[in-house]
């Protein structure tokens, strides 16, 4: 078991500001949960009621997240292994994904067309705007988009988002 326990106590070298930032987000989420549960009535047949368990859970999250923040402030800074180019790519893909889901939500057009456009744009970003690969990308995107629409609506008989 030695190796396992060594892993438990190893100091995770995360970028300090990022570590503190995530812990703060968790504290905010937990605080919102405590606030939301505050108005719930007490239990009728047992002492806990609906509020106590979420409040205790959120309270523990806050305590432990504070511990993470204190530990992060006391230790040396870690390093981030993420390249800026990679982060930018991930950011663009995340943005495109949100637009894709929004387009499906508001039923702008059919699932097949929205998906084809999304896949073309996303793959084009991931291949670093290599224009020479655009025909292949379009082909793959169209096959996937229209193929999925056919497969899900005709074979599996599943509803799809979009028009």
């Amino acid at each position, binding site marked *: *078991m*030695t*190796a*396992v*326990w060594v*892993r*438990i*106590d*190893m*100091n*995770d070298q*995360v970028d300090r500001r*990022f570590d503190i930032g*995530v*812990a703060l987000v*968790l504290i905010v*989420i937990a605080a919102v*949960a405590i606030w939301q*549960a505050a108005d719930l009535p007490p*239990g009728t*047949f*047992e*002492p806990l009621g*609906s509020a106590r368990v*979420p409040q205790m*859970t959120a309270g*523990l*999250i806050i305590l*432990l997240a504070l*511990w*993470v923040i204190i*530990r992060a402030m006391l230790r040396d800074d870690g390093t981030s292994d*993420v*390249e800026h*180019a*990679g*982060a930018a*790519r*991930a950011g663009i*893909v*995340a943005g495109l*994904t949100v637009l*894709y*889901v929004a387009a*499906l939500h508001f039923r702008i057009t059919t699932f097949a067309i929205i*998906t084809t456009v*999304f*896949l073309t744009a*996303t*793959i084009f970003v*991931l*291949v670093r705007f290599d224009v020479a690969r655009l025909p292949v*990308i379009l082909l*793959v995107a169209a096959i*996937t*988009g229209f193929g999925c629409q056919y497969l899900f609506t005709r074979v*599996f*008989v599943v509803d*799809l*988002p979009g028009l």
Partner: protein
Amino acid sequence: MDGLLLGLSIVFTPWAFFYCVLGTVLGIAVGAIPGLTGAMLIALTLPLTYYMTPTDAVVLLIAMYVGAITGGLITATLFRMPGTPSNVMTTFDGYPMAKAGRPGRALGLGISASFVGGIVSWFFLFLLAKPLSIWATRFGPFEYFTLILMAMVLIASVSQGSLVKGLIAGLLGMLASMPGVDPSAGQPRLTFDWYMLNGGLKLLPVLIGVFAVSQIISDILEIGRPMERISASTRGLLMTLRDWKKSAANMLRSSLIGTWVGILPGVGASIGSVIAYTTTKNLSKTPENFGKGAEEGIIASEAANNATVGGALVPLIAMGIPGSVIDAILIGALMIHSIQPGPTLFLTNYDVVWAMIAACLVANVLMYAIMLGSVGWVAKLAQLPRTFLLPVIIVFCVVGSFGLDNTMFDVWVMLIFGVIGFLLERAKYPLGPFVIGFVLAPLMEEKLRSGLMMTAGSIEPIYTRPLPLLFLGVAIILLVWPLIGEWRRRKQAS
């Protein structure tokens, strides 16, 4: 034995057998593609199982589970890139051995060890699941509550990274399961007066978000990093009788370690493989060879990680407690088919539970045959361009989340949890406790509150009954032990 025969007769019906083969092949394929995991595959497949019979669904998912754990050894050996997290230890010796011109031998040892690990753990699954479930039917609410509490602490304490972050991840998963109508009192809570939240956050979008979307974001960050590659060779793939004899003790020991680790609630294949590898290294006459292409290292890692599959199914089938993250997803699959996991599973869904056990056995045999016959082809899958693959998986994530209730709300939930999962993982919070907390929290709260109703608000049974006291004691030890370890290390250092 009748149950096993029933299970085998179900698995060998044409459709179920087709799903078993399909699941094993897909599992191996996904395991062999770095960045894709078994959890991701199973979460994305869940929506398609709505339209299957419960037995076909569990056969497919369990076959995927077995395949995915094994497939990862190919990339671990040939690309020094574990296909799944549980194959990390295999890279230490598999890759150096392949680099030294013996890739076939390294793969052959890994495949054979995986097969033995799977079969040994299946034997324990067959042997223990029913007696344990009969024993567990005697559990009252406080026994269940403290067992889940112990499982949660165990999951957090042995997850990769710090104990505190493991606990936070588990608690956050619990909190995420609480919005919606409180099942004990029928009172809406944490809904922000928004009707869409009255039904709570569903397991599937949360799972797909946490495991698939967050993984995709991480993979996109890694695109462009060069991979070291060695061509697959089938020379030396089959072990000789002499090899089997030489490795038998190691295979058996590592399989037993893997099975035991799998049985411990929430402790996954990665930990099993680490413990077996370390134990084998400590017992080896040539520990200096470990990390440089030691055959014993590959065998230990692969036998143990495959053995966790059968082991982890034991608490799932016997008590409804997931033995690993994938088991948490399997619990979700059972619930989707209106099957309540727990000790009464053998009584209420006899056919499903034996189909699960039989599928585990058949999938292991299929895995061995498929891996030996097609390892060269499977290795080529790892070269699929991720630039094309990842966006297509995003589309499947969207369809999978939407398909649950035909609502875009679930798709937005999936995206939000994808971001949460990504942030947690980058900040080194383990995701396993999050998902298991999400699955177990409703049951844990329900048991605690029904126990309190029975005792008019007293928690006395927790410290007066032997089992709750035992479970609570273990939970406390698991919490305190790492702190003592750190204190002792500091004392020694000073």
